[in-house]
Structures are given as C-alpha cells and as structure tokens.
C-alpha cells in the first residue's frame, strides 16, 4: 500500500470479519474514509454499525481482515507503541456520552490531557479544558458540574469536548443526535460541521438521523447484508436501486427529512439573492415586491 493512500484515507478497512458465537456480523467488509470528510454510517438495527466503530478503535477484536488507521494495522490488537501513536490522534464520543461520573466536566476533559501530555502545567490544562467546553457549545459554568447535573444534550456536548481534548484528526461519533430534541439535534449537527471545518477533522458518524445525513454528511456508507453495500453522496445512493436504500431514503421519514432540507436551503438562498442585488431591488421596487411574494409562496 502506498503512503499516499494512507495519507488520503485515515481509515482503510479491507475484508473485515466480525461475529459473536455463531452469528456473523460483518463478512468481508471494506470501507475507506477520506481525509477531511464527514462520513455518515447508516444501517438497520443490528447491522453492526457500533461493532464496526468498536473494531476500528480497538475495543473489539475482529475475526479477520485488515483495519489500517493512519497506516497502522489495528485489527491484530493495538500494542503499547501503537496506542501511544494513534490514540491521541482520535477522539470518540460514545452514545451516552460515557463521561466519568465522579469527575466534573472539566476534570473529564483533563483526563486525556493528563494521560498523554503530563508535561502541560495544571494551569494550562484547566484553560484548555475550559475553552473546549466553550467550543463544544456549553456554558462556561458547565465545566464545574458533574455529569448527573447535566441534561442529555449537555452530556453529549461534554462528551464531545472530551473527545476533542487532544485536537484529534479523527472523530468518531456514535449516534450523536439520538435522544436530542430537534432543535438540539440541529444545533449539534451545526456544531459538528463547524468544528469539522475549523479543526479540519475527519468525522466517522454513526447515525439514524436522516436530517443529520442530509445536513452535514459529505458521503454516506450503507451497512447491510454484513457488508458496506454502497458509499457515496445521497444523490449517488438514490440512483442505486437496492431495496433497503430506497426504503430508507424514500420512506416517509426520508422524504420528510429531504423536503425540510430543501426548505432550509431555499430559505437560506433567497436572502442572499436579495443581498446581492440591493441596488436592483432599490431601483425596481416592483421586483423587490415580486421577490417577496415569491419567497412567501415558496415557503
């Protein structure tokens, strides 16, 4: 494998097999994650989305196949040296947040800092923890709270802050918007996408949330039949006629998510037009009025 390829693809999975007892979860699964993209991973319940993530981050030993993360083979277990090389370069947000319940949010964020960079002074460590809290969209006083004092959405944000503690290149999110209200889910999506842009992250995002897929994912990988049956943008996936994909994206919820996405895009686009042409609008009040009318009818 060329070094260029590992540079472009932080995660390369080939021929992965996973199973519990007699039950096979993944059979000959292959997937490449591109640098700098948000890859959504979808699939019905029990298709092994979480198992896939756990295999990549070394919590589940696969039965066979190869998983290369930053060019390091991790399918055969992560040894001490690899752990030192790779673990600081990724961050993981577990489904429930998985915050350490006896530590405050700030102390939670400091755990990876202490683990990997003990030379950082206490003062700086606290400051880093607090700006991560802020970057993750939490109010500053949340830093001193214990996880049981936080709401579900805040726990996820605190978990995200901990995942981002070491400025990782690779971020794993396991159903980040599950259990959040629609407004909370939308702002979390926005946060993910902003952080991805600002920090240049590669995001591996497991989700059931169609809105998330439409809003922020660059590509979507579909898990079914023990494999990744397709990877691509949503229009590319829609062009395939696999029954599960069609049902997923064209089912009642899929359509609703799509149309709300279109609405959002239109609403965003129209003011831009008006802004771009202020002179025209001023010169021709009729046009401005017509534009307003069209906006109303469009919405």
């Amino acid at each position, binding site marked *: 494998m060329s070094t260029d390829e590992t540079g472009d693809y932080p995660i390369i999975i080939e021929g992965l097999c996973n199973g519990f007892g007699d039950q096979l979860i993944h059979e000959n699964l292959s997937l490449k994650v591109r640098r700098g993209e948000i890859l959504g991973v979808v699939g019905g319940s029990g298709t092994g989305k979480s198992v896939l993530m756990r295999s990549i981050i070394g919590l589940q030993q696969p039965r066979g196949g190869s998983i290369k993360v930053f060019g390091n083979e991790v399918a055969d277990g992560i040894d001490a040296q690899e752990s030192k090389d790779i673990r600081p370069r990724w961050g993981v947000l577990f489904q429930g947040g998985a915050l350490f319940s006896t530590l405050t949010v700030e102390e939670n964020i400091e755990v990876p800092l202490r683990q990997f960079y003990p030379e*950082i002074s206490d003062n*700086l460590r606290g400051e880093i923890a607090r*700006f991560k809290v802020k970057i993750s969209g939490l109010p500053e006083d949340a830093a001193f709270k214990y996880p049981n004092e936080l709401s579900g959405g805040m726990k996820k944000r605190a978990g995200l802050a901990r995942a981002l503690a070491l400025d990782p290149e690779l971020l794993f999110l396991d159903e980040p918007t599950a259990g959040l209200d629609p407004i909370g889910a939308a702002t979390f999506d926005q946060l993910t996408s902003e952080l991805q842009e600002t920090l240049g992250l590669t995001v591996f995002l497991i989700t059931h949330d169609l809105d998330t897929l439409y809003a922020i994912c660059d590509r979507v990988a579909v898990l079914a039949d023990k494999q990744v049956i397709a990877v691509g943008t949503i229009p590319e996936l829609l062009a395939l006629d696999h029954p599960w994909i069609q049902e997923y994206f064209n089912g009642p919820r899929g359509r609703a998510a799509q149309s709300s996405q279109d609405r959002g895009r239109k609403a965003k686009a129209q003011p831009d037009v008006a802004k771009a042409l202020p002179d025209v609008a001023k010169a021709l009040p009729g046009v401005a009025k017509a534009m307003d009318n069209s906006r109303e009818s469009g919405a």
Partner: protein
Amino acid sequence: MPRRSFSRITPPAMREWADFTFENGDKGATVVALTGPLRISTIGDLDRRLEALEDKVDRLDLSQATDIDTAGAWIAWRFSRDWQAELTGASDKAQRLIAAVSQARGDDEAEAEHEGPLVITSGWLGKNILGAWHGAYKIIGFLGEVMIALGSLLVHPGRFRAKAMVHQMELVGVNSLGIIGLMSFLVGIVIAQQGAVQLREFGAEMLTINLTGRISLRELGILMTAIMVAGRSGSAFAAQIGTMKLTEEIDAMRTIGVSPMEALVVPRVLAAMLMMPLLGFFASLCAIIGGAVISAFQIGIPFFIFLTRIQEVVPLHDFWVGIIKAPVFGLIIAVSGCYNGMQVKSNSEEVGLRTTMAVVAGIFMVIVLDAFFAVFFSEVGLG
C-alpha cells in the same frame, strides 16, 4: 500575569518542541516569535517559559510556526491578551483557530473561598454529627416504611412477591451454607482448643464441652453468622438496589405502580429474617462439631461422648437465647442494606460507598444490640 518558578522538563528526544525567540525589533519594540509546531503535544514546555517572561512584549509573531492546533492557538491568543501584544504572521488556519478559542475568554476560575482550619474542622464535625442524626432519623423512618409495606401486604396478600422472597432465601441462606459451615467449624476448633489449654491448668478439661456448647449456641454461632450475612447479603442488597436507582429502574417501578418497598425491600427483609435463625442454628451445630473433633484429638474426649455431654450441660434456654436474636439481626442487616441502596442518587462511586456503609453499619448495630441482649437475658434469669 502569574509568575512562578519552574524547572524546565527535559523533553524526550523524539519530539520536536515548540520554542520561541525574543528580540528587540526596530523602534525598540520587543517581538516574541513562536517557532516550531504549536501543537498540544509540543507546547507543554513553551507554556511554562512564556509564563516566566517578565519583559514587556509588543508583538507576537506566528509566521515561523510550522503547525498549529487549538491548544497552540490558545497559548498564542492568551499571550497576546496578557501582554496586549499585537498578533502578526498568523496563517489562515491559525486565525481560524484563534477566532474559535477566543470565544472562551474565561480563565477566571470560580475561586473557592478559603476558610481557616478552625472553621473547616468545626464545620466538618458539625456536618458529621448532623449527618449521623439525620441518618438515624431516616433509617428509623425507613424501618417504619417497611412495617407499613408489611402491613399493607397483610391486607392485600395477593401483592406479596413469594417468588422473589424464595429467590432471596436461596441467595441469603442456601448459597451461604458452605462458607458459614466452614467458618463456624473452624471457630469451634479454636474455642475448644484454646479453652482446653486454659482449663487444663485447673484440671477442668471436661468443662471445654460446656464452654464450646454454650458459647456457640448463645453467642458465637449467631453473631458470626450475622457478620457473614452482612458481608455477603447486606452488601449485595445495597449494591443491587443502588444500581437499580442509578439506572432509574426504581423510578420506572414507581411509575408503573409497583411499590419498590413491596417488590424489593420486603422480600429481602423477610428472607434475611427467616434465614438468619436457620443459618445461626446451623452455624452453632458446626461449631460444636468442630469442638468435638478437636477434643477427640487433643483432649482425648471421644467424639460421641462430647456430643452426649453437650445435651447434659447446655440448658435449653441457651438455644432460645440464640434463636430469638437471629431474626432481629437479620432485620437490621437487611434494612441497613436496602436503606443504603435506596440512598444512592447520582453516580457509581456512591454505590460503592453505600455498600460499605451498609455492611459497616449493619455489623456495628448487630454487635451493639448483641451487648444489650446479653445484659437483658442475664437480668431476666436466663444467664
């Protein structure tokens, strides 16, 4: 800006560390230029050295920084803020990251108010005394709740969880037969052997039988069993119920209309109260057998003679003294376990803490009550 002494940590050879240069630029302006990668893995040392700078700095130059992440951006931004220094030479990425971290300007950590040691100590003492008082008050309240639940089960016997109780009886009683039997057997050996050594001085070795038989039935059988049950089952009650509190199972029960008192606490309390006398009696028997075995070898009293003599020298009321105490001890242990489990509120550490408290409080209360029982029974003539 805080200044403090520091010792420079020698960086491992592998890592390229961030560094800075300090120079006097044109027109007397001092310029600090950060060099090398400004990443979280490289700035630990730089941070200390920048904090130790004492001269005024007018400009912070980032043009020689090869790489930057949010931690590096934070250092740069904080430095320029503290010194009112102009930031120059920042790449696009650096500017973007600095903009992101500068939203969080608060390094004003909420400082805890520091009090004198006298205030802290007396506050701690007062808090603990009040805590103990409230604890005693609440545990009596809990005992009352158990009684009410028992009463309402008498009125509505259909709601009684017989299956749960039988299951708990198995856990508390049957499963601990082995360990309690072995422990008591060994305790019996120790009593008989040590007793015989002392009694031999007076030529009264035969009294070893009285000693072993009476102390096993009256005191030790029940007491040792209570300690073992507190360690095995009292802790299990606290941990089970505490975990169920954490996972909101108890709340779920309440919303469905199942009373956790009736479903969880009453079966455990009754199981402990029923099993304690049986286990205690079993323990006494094992202790006597242990004594008989060691006597056969050490003192030369044949095994069956020992057992026959037991019938003659141990009054029946010794048996009753032991058996009457047993259910009371069972009640204390089970209530202590269930109560502490119910007190778990927020996190997993509390489960451990409450489990320990359940065992310690249970054993302590058992021993206190045992002393009361001892005085009481000898006063009423069952000495």
